[in-house]
């Protein structure tokens, strides 16, 4: 009995390690290549560089404009997160705390957005952007991000608020606090766990998006990082070293966020999916 279990364990370990290798290999290859010169990269993909080429990072960061793209993405994703946290928590407050006839219908109405693929609405959205001259307009881009991340955010925050204890709120109401004060000073602080969950997702969503900036942002000074990376590849596709460095720079932020908030990211995913 004991022997068989350990035998199974060995097989499981071998399989796990093999899979792990499949996952690690491309990342290690990219990381190694980012400090190699052009010739070294493909002669032996997994050899160490003869001389570590930090210059690739300098090249990507400065000459290929990754620093600018990086900053743009931080600002755009940051603004998206803030607007979404405010807008969705306000809506969730109404949907979770007040009894209206149409509350349920309204929540369902917001869920429609989760069902509609982005590509379905691309032409009309770009028509609106064009007609109102909102190209290269960052606030407009952020509003689009907000609109497309709104359903998920409202769902998560509303569900969370429904579970928040009502006694504090009722006490405040008796003390004569306005609804806004209750929202701002009672609900919002208590909803922080849900808000931080959606914020991580919304940040990643905005950081990783290319489709909207591809269509609506052509000013190089405003492009976000994922699009900047693609442009870099389009313009200088054979500068492998700096390109690999640019890839590493692009994935670094999501990677760090994940490592910092591992439980939150995984938990949020499961929560969002399971409660649907």
């Amino acid at each position, binding site marked *: 009995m004991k022997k068989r279990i350990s035998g199974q364990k060995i097989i499981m370990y071998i399989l796990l390690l093999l899979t792990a290798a499949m996952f690690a290999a491309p990342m290690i290859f990219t990381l190694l290549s980012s400090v190699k010169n052009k010739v070294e990269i493909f002669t032996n993909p997994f050899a160490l560089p003869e001389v570590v080429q930090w210059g690739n990072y300098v090249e990507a960061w400065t000459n290929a404009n990754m620093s600018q793209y990086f900053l743009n993405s931080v600002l755009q994703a940051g603004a998206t997160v803030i607007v979404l946290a405010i807008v969705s928590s306000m809506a969730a407050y109404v949907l979770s*705390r007040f009894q*209206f006839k149409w509350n349920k219908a309204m929540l369902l109405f917001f869920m429609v957005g989760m069902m509609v693929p982005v590509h379905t609405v691309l032409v*009309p959205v770009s028509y609106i952007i064009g007609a109102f001259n909102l190209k290269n307009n960052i606030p407009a881009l952020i509003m689009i991000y907000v609109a497309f991340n709104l359903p998920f955010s409202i769902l998560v925050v509303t569900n969370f608020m429904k579970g928040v204890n009502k006694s504090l709120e009722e006490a405040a109401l008796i003390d004569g606090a306005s609804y806004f004060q209750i929202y701002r000073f009672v609900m919002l602080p208590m909803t922080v766990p849900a808000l931080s969950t959606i914020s991580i997702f919304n940040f990643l969503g905005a950081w990783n998006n290319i489709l909207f900036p591809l269509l609506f942002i052509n000013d190089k000074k405003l492009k976000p990082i994922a699009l900047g990376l693609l442009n870099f590849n389009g313009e200088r596709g054979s500068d492998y070293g700096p390109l690999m460095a640019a890839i590493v720079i692009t994935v670094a932020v999501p990677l760090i966020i994940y490592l910092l908030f591992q439980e939150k990211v995984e938990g949020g995913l499961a929560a969002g999916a399971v409660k649907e």
Partner: protein
Amino acid sequence: MIKLKSNKTKMGVLLFILPALAIYLVFQIIPIIGSVYFSLVSWNGIAGSAPEFIGLQNYIYAFKSPDFILSLKNMAKMVIVSVIFHTPIALLMAVAINTKCKGYRLFKALFFVPTVFPLTAVGLMWYFIFMPTGSFNALLDVVGLSNLVTPWLVDSSTAMNTIVFVNIWAGVGYYMVIILAGLTTIPEDVYEAAAIDGATSVKQFFQITIPMLKPILSMCILMDIIGSVKVFDLVFAMTGGGPNGLTNLPTTLMYNEAFKYNHYGVGSAIGIIIMLICIVGTVGSNFITNRKKDI
């Protein structure tokens, strides 16, 4: 639940929901209606020139176009192969990690981390591996398997498969984490009781784990179907739908038709078709899982 009596406070409270509603209406609901409209007209994209109502012509054009049919076939491949591999592999990974074996945290992080990366970066990463002069072919050369060297993203027999493989690689961690969350809800004593009854771990897996996880597994499959229909970034970064439309999906084709060739009507029609496929996928998979429950 607070019931509001006065209409004035009602309006006041409604102000809370207004910003969300406004943004949502403008960039989601109106565009959905708009896309139906655009899919029924012919418009050359020049401001000032009037769109012309042409009924279902755009849809007919799409279904007559060999490019669109090819993209549908590619999509079917993407969906089917992803579904076949994603959930089962994710399940095995989750079960293995759930044993809390040595280093399980590292394994979990490694399998999950691609899902937080931008798909453009993932696509480029794999592009450099699979391009004709890329590292995979270089590796094959080094280990003496030169006869297997193939232009993976160009050859018509491998191009789409390669992209599907990358899609599986990039997404499996997502489902793994969801299943892992489901596994923790299975009480330990169920397994213990089974062990006392002499059930092997393989038997336990098939007789306890899978049945208990059924709702979560079917939800994973549903999300996978919809997610695979919507893949865009990966193809856009790896091949742009080429060579010669070989790796186009409806999404990339829609992008080309609308924004490259100014066929806004055809693009919108393809967009609507993508939505219908998602709806059918949802309803269909719900139907199948519900029926299985009855049996």
